[in-house]
């Protein structure tokens, strides 16, 4: 396997996954309106801008997602997000976002923001991540 082809493949895949992870973590944050007061890197200016961008997407998708019955329907609700993902992917602090996503998932669970996806009782943020990953897989 040549170095060029490998790096190209890996780079593309990483960019997509990083964008997805970031977007979805931020989307979860935005949905719960819990950004203010949380002592994480999510308070940085770059992240704040990204959160504002993510907010609209999140409200739209979350509203549909909560009515979804089953994974396939959930995934179909997520269509049309590709452009926004591409716009957001340049403004990501991956380590910080990963931590925030994890925290947000815990917050979702503790507050009962749980959705049923084919029986899986998932945090809303977690479901969003899985839905988009499933769509691009």
């Amino acid at each position: 396997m040549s170095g060029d082809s490998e790096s190209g493949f890996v780079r593309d895949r990483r960019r997509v996954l990083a964008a997805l992870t970031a977007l979805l973590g931020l989307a979860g944050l935005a949905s719960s309106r819990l950004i203010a007061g949380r002592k994480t890197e999510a308070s940085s200016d770059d992240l704040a801008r990204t959160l504002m961008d993510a907010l609209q997407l999140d409200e739209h998708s979350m509203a549909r997602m909560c009515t979804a019955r089953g994974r396939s329907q959930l995934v179909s609700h997520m269509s049309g997000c590709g452009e926004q993902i591409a716009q957001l992917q340049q403004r990501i602090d991956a380590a910080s976002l990963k931590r925030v996503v994890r925290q947000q998932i815990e917050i979702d669970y503790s507050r009962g923001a749980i959705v049923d996806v084919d029986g899986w009782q998932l945090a809303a943020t977690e479901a969003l991540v899985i839905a988009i990953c499933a769509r691009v897989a």
Partner: protein
Amino acid sequence: MALELASTSLSVVLLESGGFDVESDTQELATGEIAGLPTFPLVVSRLRCFGGATGHWGGRCRPLDASDFAERPWVPHSGWPITLNDVLPHYVRAQEICQLGAYDYDPASWDLRDSPPLRLPGGAVGTRLLQISPPTHFGVRYRTNVVKAPNVRLTLHSNVVQIVPEANGQSIKAVEVATLAGKRFTVRARSYVLATGGVENPRLLLASDRVIRGGIGNQHDLVGRYFADHINLDTAGVFPLETATSYDLYQQDSRARTRHKLDGTGRPGALLGMLDLSPHVQQQSRTLNFMAELSRSDWSGYFLHSDRFDFEMDSGQSALRSKLAEAREVLSTLWRNLSDAVARPFQSTSEGGNVFYRVITEQEQAPNPESRVTLGATKDRLGIPRARLAWRLTELDRHTIKVAVKEIAGAMGTTGMARVKALWDLDATDWPVHMQSSWHHCGTTRMHADPKRGVVDADCRVHGISNLYIAGSSVFPINGSANPTLTIVALSLRLAQHLKQTLQ
């Protein structure tokens, strides 16, 4: 009750349908008809012999919660006319009779360091303890005590076929007894106690209709209604995300360990942990009382609901229709789970990669007048109409399961210890074919202070009949989530005390 009355000056006659062991011809008298939800055949779930159903008892014990006795506005027909405090001293005594440890069900009191309760944040989902009896088979353990009691006359193979009231219908004159060998005789007493279980008690009352139309104690059409059992259902799977958490306290083999109290007092005991919903959540989410096992399983159990009871359920339908329904559900379950790509990430990181824990409910049933025992179309060898059981559930039962699954998922998800998956469609209109009953027949001669709302009063005396009492879980107006045996024994002791006070 016979044990408790053995030390008194009262003369007791104990009429036992069977012998000391199960005999097929006597056991056949327990055969009945099934009309509602599938449940175990009545001939399987009961035993007509000395010691009764303790002969196949699993040994799980726990008192009812104080909240079980209270009237809950969101649970129609709930509430007892007595409180936990009225039963408490009898629970303590029942604890000894059932060969249990100290009367203490607080997990904080016991040394559980080797298998601690799950640490679940928020307080919505907690751990409650059951104590496990050896189990005590009453017919074996206490046979000698009863047989040698000078004031107790035990008569085996004696089936009460008719309870005969006085002409005014206000007291019982006699009971008519028949044997399978063809003998018939009558027994007269000052007081009578009916103690034949949650199906046979209403059956006998309803069948005793020679003097009182509709049966004894049935002037308000309540006898046989409000039949309840504990819903035994593979509800969800808990998929661990890490291996540090121990689920040992919740496994069946936990009962093999002898545990001691931390303060060193009282008898040691065998314990089993169960998940429950806090009273606050029950009130806030308007649910029933809920308890569930966390049973270790592997992926074959996930797909097929395997290793459940060995007995076939009786749906009242033809064998072909039952098998087709079962096959349809198995295929549906397989399809639902095989298509589940979401499961894979969890499977790869779970304990051993192939282990999960099934959440098996043992939850309170909402009192339901349409869930009932009536008399069937056929009769047994002694001419008594067979029991016909129509077990029926309500939306409140389903709502409780949905809330419980979500709360368990929330508690476990918050810690990151596991993810939870419902093993059936919680929004489905039909109950899953794999749902089972628990052989805990309750409610059919319910206790209530108002004769229009209950068959027996707070002393377990049949309303309107001065000398007829009922012992057993048929008097439970609501069954709580705890296994019923300890409460049955405690209420029997309470009734024995009442009889001693009133008859001596």
